[in-house]
């Protein structure tokens, strides 16, 4: 019974996060492109690899339980070009504070999302080729 209550609470929390953000159009097999969620956590790994860079981070819920999350970025070659726009593969490190806005995975319960906006240690990072972050971010 206790487990069922926790499950119900978890589902309700997800609904609260996702439903108000339904605004975009578009389809994909992997992500709910019409929904965005915002998560805050701590980076555990930044994998700048093929075919899309991936960010792994831990998020604590209201009860203190840690959830392991993963998010993907645009295609790696595009991200490599972004390096020239002010950041590098070292711009994100284990232990960094991350705030991410993203489209959630379509699979119920999957803690994975598609990165749309990213703030590392309080500094926004540009995610698409040619785009500039909201706040200037010099390469460190």
């Amino acid at each position, binding site marked *: 019974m206790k487990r069922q209550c926790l499950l119900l609470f978890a589902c309700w929390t997800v609904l609260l996060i996702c439903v108000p953000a339904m605004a975009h159009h*578009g*389809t*994909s*097999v*992997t992500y709910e*492109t019409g929904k965005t969620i915002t998560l805050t956590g701590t980076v555990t790994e930044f*994998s700048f*690899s*093929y*075919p*899309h860079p*991936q960010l*792994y981070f831990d998020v604590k819920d209201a009860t203190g339980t840690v*959830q*392991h*999350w*993963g*998010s*993907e970025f*645009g*295609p*790696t*070659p*595009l991200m*490599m*070009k972004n390096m020239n726009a002010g950041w590098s593969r070292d711009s994100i490190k284990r232990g960094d504070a991350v705030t991410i806005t993203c489209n959630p*995975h379509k*699979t119920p*319960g*999957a*803690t*994975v999302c*598609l990165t*749309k906006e990213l703030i590392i240690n309080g500094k926004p990072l540009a*995610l*698409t*080729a040619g785009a500039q972050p909201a706040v200037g971010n010099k390469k460190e």
Partner: protein
Amino acid sequence: MAMRVPGVAIGLLIISVIGLSQTAPSGTGAHTKTATPFDHRNLTGKYHRESEFQTYSNVPGGANELQAFLLGQAPAPRKLNVPTEEAPFTAAGQAAFDKNIPSYGRRITEPKLGNDPQGMCDPWGVPRMLNGQVAGPHSTLELLQTPGRTFMFSEWHHDYRVIYTDGRKLPALDEVEPRWNGYSVGQWEGNTFVVKSLGFDERTWLDHNGYPHTDQMQLEERYRKLDADTLELTETITDPQYYSRPFKSDRKIWKLIKDGAKGWDEQIYCVPSEEFKFNKLIRDGGAGKPQ
């Protein structure tokens, strides 16, 4: 001002002569009807795909819509520069197509539920190398003409093929073992570079949408320079087991990257260990599960 006109003319003449001297034997000379002379038979250079990245025959629902989605953009309006054609499948061809579950296009499926060779980093082969690329930096294609051979390099998968231009004839289908990129010979027909190939490994697909072929497929590619910077490609496959008649591609357009040699090569390999991790943890949604 009067002195500049001959200067420009001399400059164009020098450029034209240099261009001719760097290419395979032509015999046709530079084009004289356009403002900028160019050698129709100089294909060497690095190109970026400009036409739509959809399917072999450009039917709706292809990779560029997905690409636009990943970038958070609306898909670019389709240029529809050419007629599109659905595949003239035989019953066997339709059955083979239905078994191919791609990771792209209108039948896009999660990696764990599909069988796209891309998911295993298997070679794309020819002609997927020509048809399967998405818009953006993946899409460069580099041609290098040398005596007797023309090399074609595809940045995505960092793969190349060889087109023999030394006058050899294609072997008979029953004389060759199928290979990923098949066996290719090229020759000039006027100002069109015609490449004929056979002996393809049937594990590859024609494109991102999972169009199948047998190892009996024969491919003809026709390359033509429309101007100094524009390369046109059309393909025709003949594969009677899967297609009821020769199946012609749409018209692919490539643009020369004038500063293509200045940057470093991107070395976009498909790395199996990275591909598997990405599919398992991200695309298949496993990041939060015990590993």
